[in-house]
């Protein structure tokens, strides 16, 4: 099976830590409305995250982050995740 294209650039950070900075194929998280996925080509998007696990799909093992809260912005395939704000 071919790997999904890594067209997203994701930066995930908390006040005292950088969880991930690199290419990814998808980001999964949840907001007040429910769980959602961000795939390459996603529309520009801004939401506040609710408590839960954020998953970043990379070429290697997925990166998972337990978040108390957060904010995510998507702009031109650039995903910025602010965790535990």
């Amino acid at each position, binding site marked *: 099976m071919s790997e999904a294209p890594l067209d997203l650039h994701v930066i995930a*950070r*908390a*006040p*005292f*830590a950088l969880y991930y900075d690199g290419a990814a194929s998808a980001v999964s998280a949840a*907001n*007040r*409305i429910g769980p*959602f996925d961000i795939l390459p080509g996603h*529309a*520009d*998007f*801004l*939401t*506040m995250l609710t408590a839960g696990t954020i998953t970043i799909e990379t070429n290697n093992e997925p990166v998972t982050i337990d978040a*108390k809260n957060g*904010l995510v*912005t998507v*702009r031109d395939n650039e995903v*910025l995740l*602010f965790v*535990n*704000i």
Partner: protein
Amino acid sequence: MRRPNIIEKDIASVTTLGNLTNVFESLASTQVAKVKNKAQLSQEFFDLLWSCYTSIRVDPKTRITARDDYGNGRTVLVLISAEAGLSGDLDMRLVETMQQNYNPATTDIVVLGSHGASQLSQRGIPYARFFQVPETDSYVNVEPVIEAIIDYSTIIVYYEEYLSLGQQEIRSLDLVMHMKAMSQDAEEGIITAADTIFEPSLNEIADQMEVTMMSLALSQTILQSGLAQAASRFNAMTTAEKRAGEMTSGYTLEFHRSKRGESDRRLREVLVGIKKKRRERSEKEGTL
């Protein structure tokens, strides 16, 4: 002059004190490096998030802090002090600076840190709420503090700022005015509902972010205060160690003087004894 064995005991005590302050100095130095690193990381995070917040374009009049009826008409002074002492006169200066703007009729005080609370009690200044300084190892949870102060019309935070290892200053920040000013600063990269999806809605996110940014601004001041306190503790311990060293030198000098004085006294006593014996002998020989 004190006896040498008493001075010797004092030397031992002051030497122990010197060693202890040396340990505290090393601990404070490690703490400065650790907190400084965290403050820098957190500042980068804060700046990035702030630029994101200010790029959201909404009608400024709808912002929580810009509403005409915002707050309960009272002022709250938030004091960010240390949990423990041994940090020099920093918290004392903090309370003294705060006192200049304190009017009991219109102002309440919220204090973070036991040392600041005890400084206020010593001066007979009442405070409305007390909080321990939030844990700063992984996550600064200021939610309870924000809940306690959010209803006030004016929120002024007094904190300690680290300028260098040798210099720490007392600063104040009007949180609401700061939020108002910063949210009007965005010039580039404006995000509007025309080009971006907001979930649940732009206004809801803006309101939520406003409180979040207020919390983060408060967290930043807590980190700054933590860094300033660690630096002040380092300076206090360096001074104490120096003082202990000077005292040890003084006591050592006194000890040697006392010891010499004691041996001189013994020598005098021996000489007096010899003279007495000689006199007694000559008197005896004279009578014979």
